[in-house]
């Protein structure tokens, strides 16, 4: 979907230079030379961003701003302000303007304010979508659980013996239920984290025994249908300060991904060690991997890398975003390395807890 901008200013030169600045940006640009004309256009069309001058003959920019905030709440409004009128700029912000651009402006200044506005719009849309998905997910949980258990009952022959073909079909139902359950869990985890602002417990957590081992002990990982053995290499049981439940989600997500996207039958390597005062945890799988230029996109919300060889794999596009959120809350780092077509390894580095600090829990 294209981005639509409207510039409102009574000075023709401002309109022309704005048009020039965004020429070649791919945005659709309209201009209006008065507040009345601009407001009429903005009411008639769905603009993403309206940039309006404040001082114009007839309807002023502040009125345009107020009218748009009231009747076109989805449009982002930016203000051009004349000679350092800080007070009017402040008033405009109070009235709902996203930002202001002092005149005269350089192309860079205008571009950067518009870019910020577009980014903010994207994030707001993402947050709204997430809220909605969380609500929907919650409602989906019970019926899904009923479908899953009913299908399992059928599969196990409690309602009569199934023919091999029938069993296969029921397995398809069960498999898709698991995908759906995974997606639902992701949305719920994520919305919980975002809603709570995530108050992380600070608890001393032995990472191998209290996080990795229980996370690996899930049926979907331990006896995964893709016959991928999980090989662990732990250097001791390093302790960090954090929230064991969130850390289990992190480890579960990374290992689940490896099982989902790795080549069938190849091992998943889970390593844990300490390096330069940091705990380093990594999960490696063989398989299609990811092209280097896509690596930075991996940890963004709703991003699913379209990658040859993963077409049949279903996911929410949220697992790695959730993982990054958990890592950020623990003041750590997460990144990926790999060779496309061969292997990929996800690394997490978390600050190790001070040895036996005053808050150290008594040994269990």
């Amino acid at each position, binding site marked *: 979907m294209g981005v639509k901008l409207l510039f409102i200013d009574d000075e023709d030169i401002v309109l022309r230079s704005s048009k020039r600045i965004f020429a070649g940006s791919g945005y659709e640009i309209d201009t209006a030379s008065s507040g009345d004309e601009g407001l009429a256009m903005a009411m008639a069309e769905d603009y993403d961003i309206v940039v309006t001058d404040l001082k114009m003959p007839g309807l002023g920019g502040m009125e345009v701003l107020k009218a748009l905030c009231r009747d076109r709440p989805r449009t982002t409004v930016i203000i051009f302000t004349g000679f350092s009128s800080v007070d009017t700029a402040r008033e405009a912000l109070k009235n709902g303007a996203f930002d202001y651009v002092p005149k005269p402006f350089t192309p860079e200044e205008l571009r950067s304010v518009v870019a910020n506005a577009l980014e903010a719009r994207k994030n707001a849309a993402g947050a709204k979508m997430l809220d909605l998905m969380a609500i929907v997910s919650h409602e989906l*949980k*019970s019926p*899904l*659980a*009923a479908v*899953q*258990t*009913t299908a*399992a*009952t059928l599969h*196990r022959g*409690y*309602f009569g013996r199934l023919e091999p073909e029938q069993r296969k079909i029921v397995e398809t139902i069960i498999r898709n*239920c698991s995908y759906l*359950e995974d997606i639902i*869990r992701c949305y*719920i*985890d994520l919305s*919980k*984290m975002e809603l709570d602002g995530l108050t992380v417990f600070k608890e001393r957590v032995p990472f191998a025994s209290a996080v990795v081992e229980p996370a690996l002990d899930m*049926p979907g990982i331990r006896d995964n249908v893709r016959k991928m053995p999980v090989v662990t290499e732990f250097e001791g049981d390093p302790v960090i300060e954090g929230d064991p*439940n*969130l850390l*289990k*989600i992190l480890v579960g997500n990374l290992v689940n991904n490896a099982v989902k996207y790795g080549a069938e039958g190849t091992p998943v390597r889970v390593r844990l060690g300490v390096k330069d005062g940091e705990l380093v945890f990594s999960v490696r799988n063989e398989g299609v991997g990811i092209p280097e230029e896509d690596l930075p996109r991996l940890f963004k919300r709703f991003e699913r890398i379209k990658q040859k060889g993963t077409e049949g794999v279903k996911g929410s596009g949220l697992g790695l975003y959730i993982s990054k959120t958990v890592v950020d809350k623990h003041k750590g780092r997460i990144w990926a390395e790999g060779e496309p077509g061969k292997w990929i390894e996800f690394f997490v580095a978390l600050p190790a807890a001070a040895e036996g600090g005053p808050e150290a829990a008594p040994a269990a």
Partner: protein
Amino acid sequence: MSKKILIVDDDRDLTASLAQVLKAHGYEVAAAHSGADGLKALLAERPDLVVLDVMMETDTAGFEAAAAVRSRRETSKYKAFRDVPIVILTAIDQVTNSRFSMDPSDSFLPGRNEFLTKPVDLDELLAKVGRALA
């Protein structure tokens, strides 16, 4: 004589599946679909074990029913059942379970409780029912 299990869950489809499974393993099964009906059924059916969904029509209906069963009050209507084993079904997941501990040993309810999260794993259900009735 076969043991009797009362399933209390407002999801009738799920109840039907679980009932079928439990019957196939030799248990007698009764069902109720709300906390209040569950308490009535407890008195009428006199089960050896209760499978109780604690996330029914309201968030607390199941918990209230469980608390009524476990009540230590001398005048409690459910006095005869205060020690009946309960398999508690929850849909509460890892992050959201802050209100109630999933660890039976420091449970909010005294007595013999087993916990099972939805979607129900059938083997786990049978194992926990078997253990609670042993």
